[in-house]
């Protein structure tokens, strides 16, 4: 088995679900992904020197260049390529609908893998990582930090996330706007069962702030192309309401509607200056990461 194949194999959601350790999952994903990316256009992304920057409060003192201080008695921080956007804020949807999954991996599990992977990748590049876990309200908020131990805290917070109530996409964006003023990356991981117009209204202010927003739209294959053999009583995981649906509807009109919804979300995201990425949770994470890196590179 080649290294590439092995790495790809490791990134399969079902394989990751068996690891049960979010830190390990994140490392496995990132290291495996980067191993396969060593000849990619993102090669220079890692530790190449870019510039010096005056030390400011909040900067990690470990990166102060003491040689420059000895010569100039001024504190400068050494900056590298890829470190121009120094903050990644992950907004993880932990609503009840994220608990759906037709296979071994639910949307929330996949979202947690993705969030952990992004956090680890960011930490590896010395980016500050923050986390907001939400459903119909903010359930956990860890401000972005690049300090030692910051990643561990984020991973633990991700690990604690469990599907709970309904979805209120406005709440995390409003909180984010309240606490984060500077530029940065914002990764929203959700199934986005919400009104595209409402999403547009929530994301647009961030874009005006100069934030780069990427929406990871997680859907189960059974949500994208459901197969129902006979009529069934489907229960909404968030509201508890039930509805008897026929297989014909699920194989025709529903698909049209979900496709329209995804398109609307995509359109709204673009309209708000954000990226929208539909993620099939049955697919490996490396595809998602590749898209993210493209996004990161373009925005960085």
């Amino acid at each position, binding site marked *: 088995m080649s290294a590439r194949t092995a790495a790809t194999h490791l990134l399969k959601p079902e394989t990751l679900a068996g690891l049960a350790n979010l830190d390990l999952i994140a490392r496995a994903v990132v290291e495996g992904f980067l191993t396969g990316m060593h000849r990619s256009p993102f090669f220079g992304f890692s530790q190449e020197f870019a510039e010096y920057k005056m030390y400011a409060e909040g900067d990690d003192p470990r990166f102060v260049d003491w040689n420059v201080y000895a010569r100039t008695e001024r504190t400068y921080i050494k900056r590298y390529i890829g470190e121009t956007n120094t903050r990644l804020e992950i907004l993880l949807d932990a609503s009840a*609908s994220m608990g*759906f999954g*037709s296979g071994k991996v639910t*949307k929330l599990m996949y979202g947690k893998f993705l969030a952990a992977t992004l956090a680890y990748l960011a930490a590896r590049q010395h980016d500050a990582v923050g986390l907001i876990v939400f459903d119909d309200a903010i359930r956990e908020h860890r401000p972005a930090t690049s300090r030692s131990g910051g990643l561990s805290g984020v991973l633990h917070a991700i690990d604690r996330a469990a599907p709970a109530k309904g979805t209120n996409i406005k709440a995390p964006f409003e909180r984010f706007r309240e606490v984060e003023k500077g530029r940065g990356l914002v990764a929203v991981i959700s*199934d986005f*069962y919400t009104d595209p117009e409402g999403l547009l209204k929530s994301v647009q202010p961030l874009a005006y702030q100069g934030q780069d927003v990427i929406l990871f739209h997680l859907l*189960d294959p*059974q*949500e994208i192309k*459901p*197969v*129902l*053999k*006979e*009529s*069934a*009583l*489907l*229960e*909404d*995981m*968030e*509201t508890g*309401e*039930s*509805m*008897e*649906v*026929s297989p014909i*509807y699920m194989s025709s*009109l*529903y698909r049209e*509607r*979900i496709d329209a*919804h995804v398109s609307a979300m995509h359109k709204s995201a673009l309209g708000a200056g954000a990226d929208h990425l539909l993620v099939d949770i049955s697919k490996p994470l490396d595809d998602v990461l590749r898209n993210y890196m493209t996004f990161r590179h373009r925005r960085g």
Partner: protein
Amino acid sequence: MSLLAPAFLAGLLAIGLPWWLHRLSSDNPNKQRFSSLMFLEPGEPRRVLAKKVQYLLLLALRIGVLVLLALAFAQPAIWRKPTAGDGSAARLHVIVLDVSASMGYRDRWQRAVDAANDVIGSLSADDRAQLIAAGRSIEVLGSPTADASVLRQTLNTVKPGVFRIDYGQTMRALDGVLRGANLPVVIDLVTDAQQSSLPTRFGELAPRRAAELAVHDVATGTADNWAVDSFGGSALTGELEAGIRSFAAEPATKTVKLEHNGRVVAEQTVEVPAGGRAQARFQPLELASGGNRVRVSVEPADGLAADDQRFLSLKRPQPRPVLIVAADPKGKGPLYTSAALGTLAALALTPEVKAPNGLGDKPLTDYSFIVVTDAGLLGPAETTRLQDYVQGGGRVLLAFGPRAASLTTVPVAGEALKPGSQLGAAKTASIGEVDAGHPALRGVDELRSAKFTRYLAVEPHADDRVAIRLDDGAPLLLDRALGSGRVLLFTSSLDREWNDLPVQPVFVPFLAGLANYLLGGAGFTSEADLGSTLAVRALGLVGGQIFDPRGEKALALGGGDDVLLDQVGFYEVVGGGNSELVAVNFDPRESDLAPVDAAALERWRGLGMRASDQAQAPSAAAAEEPVARSLGPWLVLALLLVAVMESWVGNWHLRIRRGLAA
């Protein structure tokens, strides 16, 4: 409808299980969690309704399986009165085959078999048939069946016998067979319709129960037959005479042969007139000591060979002295007795009449038995001598007379006497109760013709067997064993003084029976009717055996010692160091093959009841006794069908339950 095992209905309680499961299923329908109903719309009501109906159908089928299962065990049955109008034309054909000897005449039996086969071949699918052989009695040959092959196979095992049939008795016997029939009955009587087999009353030809009667007459044309209808002679002289009877329209010349112990000893030709009779007399036959087997036959043989011969058992008798004690040996008193005993040639008795004082002339043991015509003649000495004689094995017949009127006890035997009964001319007594089983009275009929004007009332002893009573209950003939001997006590006189028995035709057979009994059965009749029974014990032989004409040991009936005489020829009875021959001959009435005339035959056929009318007959057993028709097979069939449907619908239901594809 009723249930043969209603307790199994308790199994219906199991219906609760699928009902409960259905309720659980209703409470927990095929519900699946889904992310959001945001893009969903309710399914078509028709589909939802169809699914509910499917659920209910599955529940109904499951309950149906349990109900049918419980019912199948409970064995429901419909009680029906089998009637002709219920849409079924089923009949029970009782095929009665006449197996009397006359059916062996020429090809009658083959025609009978053909007729029976025709009946079997005409059976419809619903019909049943049963074969019965009718001769001396009826024999049921298997249960009613619709299987023609079984019937034909059984038919091939039947052959005509040697007995005579009586149609009246046959119809009476069929009553027991028809009692269990649950279908309209058709009696198919396959017979040669012999005139001589008709009963005395024509009405006895009708079936006792409601049944259609079909008489299949297999006799065709004239049936010429010649038979030896009588054969007898004197054992003393050896003279023999045979009678040849013609049942033919033309005279015939016949050769009559006489066989003695298997050897032809005489032969003569006789002219037998049409419908008449001829006698063949033979020269005296030199009989051998012991039993002699004598057979007479007529030749040439005709279509019915069974009656072309006749058998006679002759035993050369040894003279047996018999002492008759009378007041006046030359008077009329002992006349009737001595004359009657002297005529019993077969017994070869030599009566010797003496006065009471002559008892000591020679030893009493020289006499085979002693007859005392008036017990009042005996003095104490004579009484003592007679008692010793009896105790030593002697046999005595005591009668009463005028001298006995003063007695208070019976001499020799010792029974008490009541005051004498003088009935007078205006009032007489006749024979009342007769112990027909007493060996001395076998074959003695018409005793009731005698009138008794006087008798002595005897108080029977505990050991006495009262063989005959008068109609007023007084004993007339008592039998008592004393020591090794025996005493017969006749409580009236043996002359005409007290009764008219001596002038009645039955007197000689009566005395013959008494003499035969007193002789210890040594002179028993050497002839018996075909179909009668013969018992060793009744003949006075101990530990004996009976061998049939083929020389095989005859088997007793029903575990007793009575042997059915079902063959013609000589039966040999061996026992007690003696051997006796019994000749059994063909019933001469069977030789007359003349059929019932056509008009009578039609009237006979009309005595039956049409099958369609049998349901209304109050005496029809089938109408009275409804029969149970089990619904079990139908229930099992329905159970299988419902079980298959349940599996199919259940599988469909499970597919529903699986719902979203994994």
